[in-house]
């Protein structure tokens, strides 16, 4: 394992000039020409706007209906606005984007399909539950670095009311949420990944690049309680992060931050304990988007934020900003997803989970 001049990790011995040199360890990839993140946009709902990260999002929309007739259309509108904003911030037109890779939590990805229809960009719709942003960025950067696209947009969204309606109860139904339950974030985040540097980058600002990734496996430790997603997803995050360390032969301090998607308070503790048991202490680096996005006490969000939008807007609004201001240099972004459906839950199944790790660097 060597670190070359550009700071890009390469597996030594495997790098013989052929593309095979990009494959690292069991589940990872290190890019030779790390693709650039040239634009990012984040739009959030009212509650998220009132949270600790509120000021960092590009736009806060107070109307939970986003001017639409129903929750599903509201989320579609939200995603469309976010995609358009990412384009506008980069000074690009929709025709400049070769592929759009996106998904959401609603059945058959209707928020995505209806939301981006009129953009007319070739699309890959993906489902990774709340890990969707990680999956979209992995696939997008691989397409760009592999030479199959100049620019790709990775996008995802979630909406509190839409998710409640689909996975839990009607909004006005009087029930008590347990302390382990999370609060689905209303928000949408997008990034544009390019094979060219950001032309609008100011002097002295670093390039934001995706240097590699570790793709997660389905991990299921038998948790059935859909009101405790953090505990269900923690083992998935554990295995992916551990695999990333092993594949690249690095220690946690290689990163300035290791950022999970929506483990919340309970999942975070389990993750830290599990990694500590394997002699990886990440307590100095770890951060969870679900914990950052809400003020647990004041906003009454119990275990923390969740949903595709949770990690997506935190990444687009907060994490990229920290990298751009050189406060952090290297981060491991690990969105986590619980891949259950209401049918699988009703049939008494366990919750299969996944976590994808994206390596992002300011250089």
């Amino acid at each position: 394992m060597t670190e070359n001049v550009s700071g890009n990790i390469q597996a030594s011995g495997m790098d013989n000039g052929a593309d095979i040199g990009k494959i690292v360890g069991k589940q990872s990839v290190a890019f030779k020409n790390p693709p650039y993140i040239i634009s990012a946009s984040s739009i959030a709902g009212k509650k998220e706007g009132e949270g600790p990260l509120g000021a960092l999002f590009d736009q806060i929309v107070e109307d939970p209906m986003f001017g639409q007739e129903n929750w599903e259309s509201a989320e579609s509108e939200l995603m469309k606005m976010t995609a358009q904003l990412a384009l506008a911030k980069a000074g690009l037109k929709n025709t400049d984007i070769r592929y759009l890779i996106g998904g959401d939590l609603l059945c058959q990805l209707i928020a995505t399909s209806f939301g981006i229809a009129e953009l007319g960009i070739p699309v890959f719709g993906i489902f990774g539950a709340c890990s969707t942003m990680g999956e979209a960025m992995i696939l997008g950067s691989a397409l760009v670095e592999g030479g199959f696209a100049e620019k790709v947009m990775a996008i995802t969204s979630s909406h509190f009311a839409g998710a409640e309606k689909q996975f839990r109860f009607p909004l006005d139904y009087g029930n008590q949420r347990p302390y382990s339950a999370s609060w689905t974030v209303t928000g949408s985040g997008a990034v544009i990944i390019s094979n060219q540097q950001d032309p609008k980058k100011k002097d002295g600002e670093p390039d934001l690049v995706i240097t590699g990734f570790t793709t997660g496996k389905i991990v299921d430790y038998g948790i059935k309680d859909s009101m405790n997603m953090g505990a269900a997803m923690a083992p998935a995050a554990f295995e992916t992060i551990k695999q990333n360390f092993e594949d690249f032969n690095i220690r946690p301090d290689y990163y300035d931050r290791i950022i999970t998607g929506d483990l919340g308070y309970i999942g975070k503790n389990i993750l830290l304990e599990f990694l500590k048991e394997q002699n990886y202490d990440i307590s100095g680096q770890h951060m969870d988007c679900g914990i950052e996005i809400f003020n647990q006490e004041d906003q009454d969000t119990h275990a923390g934020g969740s949903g595709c939008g949770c990690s997506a807007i935190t990444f687009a609004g907060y994490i990229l900003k920290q990298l751009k201001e050189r406060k952090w240099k290297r981060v491991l972004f690990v969105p986590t997803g619980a891949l259950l459906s209401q049918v699988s839950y009703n049939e008494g199944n366990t919750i299969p989970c996944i976590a994808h790790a994206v390596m992002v660097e300011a250089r």
Partner: protein
Amino acid sequence: MGRKVVLMEKEKNKIAEILQEKNKAVRDEKYKQYVEQVTPKFSIVKNCIAAYIVGGIICVIGQGLTNFFLSRTGDLELSKAYTTLCLVFLSVFLTGVGLYQKLAKFGGAGTLVPITGFANSVAAPAVEYKKEGQVFGIGCKVFTIAGPVILYGIFSSWVLGLIYYILKQIGIV
């Protein structure tokens, strides 16, 4: 202090055990126990007190209404029917303006058990699924939460009726 260290040591062994366990069923069971330990729970005492207060207030309102109607009509059965109507209306109204859920968050079973809880469980889906149309929305989904109560409520009263009938025939009751 010493006890805390011992506890932490015990916790650590537990995690090692989970991670080293090769049998998935055993590992899952151990993990489940560990998760139960680290997940915070509601205080049952606090919940009971809140439920007692809120449920009690709803019942007092109900009794007040009954007394009021009784003084007007002099007919107890009729007064009870009016009371039910009023409570159901009140619950549906509060659901419609989004207040019932807030009350339930505090009151828990205190808001669930009285008839107001049942009304809420029918009104909430009606509000939510209205967008999906009168037939496939409200029509099909209005009893998503109350459905099991209605079905098994009627079924169990049928079973009890049957038992009562049999006992009556053989002269026990």
